[in-house]
């Protein structure tokens, strides 16, 4: 991102490599780069995660507030995405420089989470028509090394997995107002049901083929990318077995094209199929990693958070 300069020859090298299913870093077209994920890294947030996908670094903090539901949807809570492109990632982001990119990603996330098949807002309802939880998902982009959307969506799902809402102990009715009493006990809290939360997969069209997880160099060789949001499989995120078959089924929640180019309908269809396959695998891997980390924290083999010190 930061001052990336590629010569025409380098670009040709990348394009030809993709054609032969052999990319410049040795991956095939359907491979992801290695990832590092840690949850519960920010103690001031209700839930947090940090994801590093090669050079892309994302920190997500989830904060909760009590709000009044909208009159049209009295039984639904609220979720809001806010993306901040830190100037640490690129000097162009200084001041309001990163705003356009930030708003684009926030819109994409909002669209992906909009469907009730993806994220059930009913679980955020406290008192129908009166009180609900509002979840602020604050995404901080600390380094850009390509494929921001996928990394953001995974970090968000991990942060939401890590979020625990305190239980409501009592509600006092005072005329039309409700006074809630929340539990002080950090263990008296319920996790969010995020099994179906969507992951975004970017398919970057290079030459005639599409690749997943493009690096910054590959992104600069492409004129168009297709971003698909695919719902997750809840059985990867819990040890319980009672998951309905309709929830297990992956569905598209959003499809967006990013870039100045265009694609043939057939390529688009292929790209979407490729995205669906990638999303399923990614979702499974993410669920496994999160469950493993949760187990490690419970049996205290993981003593402290590493954060950025590792």
């Amino acid at each position, binding site marked *: 991102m930061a001052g990336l300069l590629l010569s025409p020859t380098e670009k040709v090298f990348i394009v030809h490599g993709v054609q032969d299913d052999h990319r410049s870093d040795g991956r095939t077209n359907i491979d992801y780069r290695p990832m590092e994920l840690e949850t519960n890294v920010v103690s001031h947030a209700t839930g947090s995660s940090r994801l590093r996908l090669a050079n892309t670094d994302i920190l997500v903090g989830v904060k909760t507030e009590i709000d009044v539901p909208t009159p049209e949807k009295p039984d639904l809570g609220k979720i809001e995405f806010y993306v901040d492109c830190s100037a640490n990632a690129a000097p162009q982001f200084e001041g309001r420089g990163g705003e356009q990119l930030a708003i684009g990603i926030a819109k994409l996330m909002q669209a992906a989470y909009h469907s009730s098949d993806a994220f059930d807002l009913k679980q955020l309802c406290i008192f129908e028509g009166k009180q609900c939880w509002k979840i602020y998902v604050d995404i901080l982009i600390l380094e850009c090394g390509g494929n921001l959307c996928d990394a953001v969506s995974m970090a968000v799902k991990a942060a939401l997995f890590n979020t625990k809402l305190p239980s409501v102990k009592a509600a006092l009715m005072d005329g039309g107002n409700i006074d809630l009493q929340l539990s002080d006990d950090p263990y008296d809290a319920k996790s969010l049901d995020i099994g179906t939360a969507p992951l975004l997969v970017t398919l970057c069209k290079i030459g005639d083929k599409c690749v997943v997880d493009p690096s910054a160099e590959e992104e600069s060789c492409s004129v168009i990318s297709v971003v698909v949001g695919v719902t997750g499989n809840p059985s990867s995120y819990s040890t319980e077995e009672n998951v309905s078959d309709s929830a297990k089924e992956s569905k598209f929640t959003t499809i967006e094209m990013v870039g100045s180019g265009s694609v043939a309908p057939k390529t688009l269809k292929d790209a979407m199929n490729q995205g669906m396959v990638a999303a399923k695998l990614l979702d499974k891997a993410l669920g496994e990693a999160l469950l493993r980390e949760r187990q490690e924290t419970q049996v205290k083999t993981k003593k402290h958070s590493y954060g*950025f010190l590792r």
Partner: protein
Amino acid sequence: MSSDFNVKRPGLELLSSQGLRLDGRRPNELRRIQCKLGVFTQPDGSAYIEQGNTKVLAAVYGPHQAAKSKSLQDSVVINCQYSMATFSTGERKKRPRGGRKSEAISMQLTQAITTAIKKELYPRSQIDVYLEVLQADGGAYSASVNAATLALIDAGIPMKAYLCSCTASIAWKDGKPEPLVDVSHVEESAGGSVLTVSSLPSINSVAWVDMSQRLHADYLSVVMKRAMQGCRDIEVILDKAVREHLGESWTMSDDAVAI
């Protein structure tokens, strides 16, 4: 000064009868500092510091050619941006930067950092220093200065000395003033004034001082002294981190690392 005058001052409850602070530290103890240089690959220099629960990331880009309007004939221009993550504070912040407070802190950082850099080496150039507070628990400015120092060192920019920053406040014990070093958020908000000092301890000079609220002039020198001692203590920690980092990345033999 009569002791009943002191008793009415704020900050009385900051020290327990055993002389310990709210988080169990002694008055002259810093919070635990952990730091790392070179956390990111894309910036020219980067660093991360944790001072207790205050966590700051710093990135340095440059030196590079300065924008025409800013460019100076005989020295380098320092461009600083301080921003706080929306989830860094107890209450969610609406926006990470652009507010009056963060603009002011950006300017103060620029001033402190400019004093420490050998400016004359890079005429018509610019160095960008970006600071991102991930978690704020008091002394975010000080932690930012310390992080910026490490990031500048990681970027290989020549400096006159380590630039270290530390806060100090005052509490009362048995009617006597007892300065507190490295003030946490709870102590900050309990009232009383906070003195923030940025200094170059090894050449014994003060780069920048800020005082919130009022403090009797009689006590200024003791508080200042404690803050300066804090800066010296921090310098030792930063120096150790730098040496360890360089030892690591150059894969020197063990005896060469233990200088």
